[in-house]
């Protein structure tokens, strides 16, 4: 665990899609898929990113979408970036025997470490990743190296056409699974959650909220009475059922609660 941000050298940068790059950082850290680190660019900001690979080096996949991530994209190999963490609760494999792993968009990064772990624990699983279009699919090897991968694109430019949730529905209709583990845009997660509930299947969903401390003290990331940074970011079905704000509300930097639409509009600025 790194408490105060430490500087880590970027040993490798792998472009994944036009808007996603994977950064390998020279920092030994151990953790569980679903946990995240705070990445710091001095003078700019500090934001949470899921770790797709722990160990002697760590890997994070960053999607370029705003001021912070644009600055990240300017970094080159041998540059350094601040890291602290890992924080939060990752995915739990307790009692899981047969799972579906789902990654949507840059949420794919948060589940990219799962296939290896599941395989090592002899847990059966199928993976589904989705993106708007072919070029935006990424991290295939993290999934294919350890099991079956179904890829979906909104426009049908690769793999299955349509949202990941359609693939999910089909699979749940055919076979029984213990647990669905997913990360992606909240609209997608809401759909995954509803699908699982309708099929009486447990799920673990990795949520996202604007974060400040990452430590569970400031409650910037609060959803109902849960702290996404500490109680989550991964929540199971039992907890999800109690989250009245999920899929509906989030908080701006001021702490003000607004509808998700307004939250995203603010993030876009």
């Amino acid at each position, binding site marked *: 665990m790194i*408490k105060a941000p430490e500087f880590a050298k970027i040993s490798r940068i792998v472009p994944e899609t036009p808007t996603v790059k994977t950064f390998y950082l020279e920092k030994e850290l151990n953790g569980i898929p679903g946990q995240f680190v705070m990445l710091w660019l001095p003078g700019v900001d500090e934001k949470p990113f899921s770790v797709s690979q722990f160990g002697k080096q760590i890997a994070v996949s960053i999607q370029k979408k705003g001021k912070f991530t644009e600055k990240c994209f300017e970094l080159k190999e041998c540059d350094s970036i601040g890291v602290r963490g890992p924080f939060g609760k990752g995915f739990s494999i307790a009692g899981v025997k047969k799972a579906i792993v789902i990654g949507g968009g840059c949420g794919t990064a948060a589940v990219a470490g799962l296939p290896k772990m599941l395989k090592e624990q002899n847990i059966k699983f199928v993976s589904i990743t989705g993106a708007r279009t072919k070029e935006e699919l990424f991290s295939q090897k993290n999934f294919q190296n350890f099991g079956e991968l179904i890829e979906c694109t909104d426009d049908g430019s690769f793999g299955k056409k349509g949202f990941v949730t359609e693939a999910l529905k089909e699979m749940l209709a055919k076979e029984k699974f213990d647990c669905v583990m997913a990360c992606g845009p909240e609209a997608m997660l809401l759909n995954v959650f509803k699908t699982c509930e309708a099929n009486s299947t447990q799920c673990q969903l990795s949520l996202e909220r604007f974060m*400040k401390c990452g*430590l569970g*003290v*400031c409650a*910037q990331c609060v959803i*109902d*009475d849960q702290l996404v940074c500490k109680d989550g970011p991964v929540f199971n079905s039992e907890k999800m059922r109690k989250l009245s704000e999920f899929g509906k509300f989030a908080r*701006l930097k*001021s702490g003000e609660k607004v509808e998700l639409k307004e939250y995203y509009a603010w993030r876009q600025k």
Partner: protein
Amino acid sequence: MGNIINASLAGVELKTPTILASGFLGVNSGILKRAAECGAGAVTTKSIGFEKRDGHNNPTVFELEAGTGLINAVGLPTPGFRNMEEEWLELKECKVPVIASIFGASVQEFVEVAEFVAGKKPAMIELNISCPNSKSHGQLFGTSKEASFEVTSAVKNVIGKIPLMPKLSPQALNIAEIGKACEEAGADALCAINTLGPGMVINIEARKPVLHYKTGGLSGPAIKPIAVRCVWQLFESVKIPILGLGGITNGRDAVEIIQAGASAVGVGTAIHYNGIEAFGKINSELEDWMQANGFSSIEKLRGIAHD
């Protein structure tokens, strides 16, 4: 039927003496209620300000490597006092007293926020005149006798019967005099202490201060001796009750600050170390210690180190 750890602060009855410190968790009613369920005797909202503020960029809070606590410059983010109707409504259901913490950049702002907030009938209003993380708010007031007096009496004038509790800065050169000035201005209780400093941590590889705001207040175990001293000095100078906080992490810490003169105990950084369960842990350790040492009430324990 009373329990030995029942407490009371300026007439506000508390099932337990541990109170959630402002700035920790107090963003919405859901998490405040959870703190209450976990054993908090009362909960304090994140300080509420005049206008909507985002606070500082990240990093805003992190743990010091030396294990001495946290450093933070969150920078008083707030939706603005008019913008929290829903939270107020939901807070009515909270099973423990809710303390509304407020701040302002001028006496006028303090007064307007206080008047509005008083209308929501919180159990108490806490005046944050001691935040070290904003240029124009906070510490400026809390380190001057005159300014502390002025803002306290101005706010007291507009909040009717709701008890008023200024929160003091450990940076004050003479906290006993500041406390006295607040008491004379009509304060019903005092809260001590806010974060210490400010301090600064530089990442030597980045060659830059880590906090985006550069400097930030210290909290946690490192500041406990300062908090105990402040409560001690206030106890000798004022008659109104004191909410003591700063690094209180376990039952022994609570006993210590109560022996120094606190009527109740604030809990903040302990939540980082022990989760929201920090309240239950402190409460039960406190109760055990009191039982083992023959104390039948917080009141009897209070201030005994002065004898």
